[in-house]
């Protein structure tokens, strides 16, 4: 039997750890990284010190224990959003590289006067 304290600590630490891991692995682009850093900090704090929630509940007037399903549901939503931001970061990287390559190829095309291009070394990146 886990106590509520341990359960919430596990959830908070796991979520914060997963986010930090992904941010550090360079999967997230600047502004998203900031957002997820904040989420990681919040989940960590609330998970390890659930007394904060009690305090928050008292301050805001909302104090009703069976919110665990909601917390789990929200966590899933957050994970989904995390995945979306990861994909967007990847796309941003691809768009930037394609934009650069387009400009480079356009310049080569201009230089060659639109004639068929000779074999140029390709750096195998988009």
């Amino acid at each position, binding site marked *: 039997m886990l106590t509520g304290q341990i359960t919430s600590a596990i959830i908070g630490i796991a979520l914060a750890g997963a986010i930090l891991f992904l941010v550090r692995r360079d999967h997230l682009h600047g502004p998203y*990284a900031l957002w997820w850093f904040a989420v990681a900090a919040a989940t960590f704090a609330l998970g390890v010190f659930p007394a904060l929630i009690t305090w928050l509940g008292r301050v805001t007037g909302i104090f009703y224990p069976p919110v665990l399903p909601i917390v789990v549901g929200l966590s899933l939503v957050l994970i989904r959003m995390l995945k979306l931001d990861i994909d967007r970061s990847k796309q941003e990287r691809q768009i*930037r590289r394609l*934009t*650069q390559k387009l*400009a*480079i190829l356009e310049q080569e095309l201009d230089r060659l006067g639109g004639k068929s291009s000779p074999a140029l070394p390709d*750096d195998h*990146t988009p």
Partner: protein
Amino acid sequence: MPARDEAPTVGSVVEGVRRMLPCRVLVVDDASGDATAQAARVAGATVLRLPLGLGAWGATQAGIRYARRNGFSEVITLDADGQHQPDSVPMLRAARERSGANVVIGTCVGRLSRAKRIAWRYLRLLTGLKLTDFTSGLRLYDADAIDVLAGQEASLLDYQDVGVLMLLARSGLKITETPVTMLPRRAGRSRVFASWPVVARYMVHTTVLCLAQLDPARRRARTAGADPIC
């Protein structure tokens, strides 16, 4: 030379560099709305035109990728707004020969405002890089640095300064600085130090970037036995 809406100055900067060095001058037009590309071409530069604005670093990286694709072994970047004097370009090359560094940054210490000094002290603390000016666009990159910066990992960086320098340092490259003289901007304003909200955003962004990279940088520096400067 990354350029966005710098038509009034880009031509004279290109001509100045061509007078100083017998090199290919490449202007990367970052989706300008004015005649930047034509002015650069008339002055004798090769021009890349980015169809979407990528920012100063995105434009610079386009130039670095061009250099890599065409087999150049050295890239010198400078701002198109006329604040960097073409005669500081040979000083960068001299500093490279003297120090054997992979990257040389031209800095003008006297130009730094008080706010910048404080910001840089903070960044020095955060990054462990012992540099006096993080945002100077006057830089020399050698072939190793070109290889690193042309890669995928450098494509998501938004500013050319801390992220780029930390990437270079993590790759085990040596970074050095050399003092140069700079002119006040003839036109336009600094993109980073434009207003307080922009500065705040930049500092927060950079802090997050540093936090995300802090430990790997230290670990690799230790295992490689690298110079603490880089």
